[in-house]
């Protein structure tokens, strides 16, 4: 890549795999469990976090030399809350339908530990461009896991993807359901997300054994 130096590229690529915020750092688990019953909700949440983390990291990074150390957590919280409220209000005025869809995610975004985690761990110590790349990278790493979990939970739990019945109608018994297949109701409740995330962690660590911690 000519646009980005090797180091900058790593800022984006690392969180996608070997330093993934969910599977390696175990951050953002709460929203990964709460909203992955449907693929669409996963995608919406991933995009929202991408925006908030990208912009928030830049703002915190620009302010990093003037933020008093004692109240830095409060300042971070105010920055992310302000950003989310501004976006929410503007959408309510100009894209009302979209804002209705997003309104349930607002609380989840503000309390997402990945956002506070990246502000604290990266944006406070690095320049705005790097912080931006780091934010984008981590949000993508988070989003990928969310989408993978949402894909399996919606497919196995409801037999749909993005709301479309991809394997037949469970009530009319068509498609795959004609063979006696049933949806697994367990997949749509939050504990199933924990199991899917667990399987992803397992797969990832058996492919790259360097990730396994010593006890």
């Amino acid at each position, binding site marked *: 890549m000519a646009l980005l130096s090797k180091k900058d590229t790593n800022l984006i690529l690392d969180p996608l795999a070997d330093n993934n915020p969910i599977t390696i750092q175990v951050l953002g688990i709460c929203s990964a469990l709460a909203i992955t019953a*449907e693929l669409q909700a996963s995608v919406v949440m991933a995009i929202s976090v991408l925006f908030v983390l990208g912009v928030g990291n830049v703002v915190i990074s620009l302010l990093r030399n*003037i933020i008093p150390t004692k109240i830095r957590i409060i300042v971070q919280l105010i920055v992310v809350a302000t950003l989310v409220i501004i976006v929410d209000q503007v959408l309510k*005025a100009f894209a009302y339908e979209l804002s209705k869809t997003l309104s349930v995610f607002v609380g989840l975004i503000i309390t997402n530990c990945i956002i506070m985690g990246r502000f604290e761990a990266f944006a406070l110590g690095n320049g705005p461009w790097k912080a931006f790349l780091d934010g984008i990278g981590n949000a993508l790493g988070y989003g990928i896991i969310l989408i993978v979990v949402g894909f399996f939970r919606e497919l196995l739990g409801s037999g749909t993807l993005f709301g479309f019945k991809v394997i037949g109608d469970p009530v009319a018994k068509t498609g795959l359901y004609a063979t006696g297949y049933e949806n697994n109701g367990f997949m749509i409740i939050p504990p199933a997300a924990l199991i899917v995330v667990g399987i992803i962690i397992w797969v990832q660590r058996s492919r790259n054994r360097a990730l396994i911690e010593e006890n």
Partner: protein
Amino acid sequence: MAFNKENNSYTIVFAAIMVIIVGSVLAYLASALSGKIAENERFEKQQNILYAMGVNENGDGGSVNFVPTDRVEAEFSKYITEQLVINGDQITQNDEAYLIDLKKQIASIKKGETAELPIFIGEKEGNKYYIIPMYGKGLWDAIWGFIALNENMVVQGVYFDHKSETPGLGANIKQRYFLDDFIGESIVSNNQLKGIAVAKGNNDPENNIKDDNEVDALAGATITGNGVSAMIRESVNLYKDYLETIRVN
């Protein structure tokens, strides 16, 4: 660094300036956008009321489609023939009844005060629709909606919405397949106005049985479903006296 970031007075000054900046930005934004937001909310209420009485753009697909906002005011005044406010024994006409906040009215009933309960009468293709607003609580926060009845106390359509139910589970109360299940259900049980229960295990996933006062529940959304049942029951109860006067069956 020019400043001493550990200094207490610096910390206080920083906090004060930050609060003033953030506060004024948010206050400016809120007042600049409030008109537009209020208009959107007004359109949404009209769309919801019309949706319940079957005035919508639903196609064969499985999605909920409202009358578009540029036409909603015209359609609202075309189809909604009367807007009434029930205050104890008094019933008055009020063309802005749809703007009454049911939450506040329910709160004043709980305090033992009088309340103004709005009800909308719609007419479409010679049929009359009595649309009552509903308000209740789901798992996380408020749920609300509208239910359209005919003189026989049979549901002609419903619309539900929620503030923050879980996406993919409780949030599905506003999905078409759930809303459509209510159409044709009677709210009368043993000759009394009861409502409709969202029931698990009613063994009727296609909802062919229309006289059981039950619709099939959403998997994984028990508490939201119970909230919907309670909301319908309580709203029917609020409007019971009025509904008995129009009931023919």
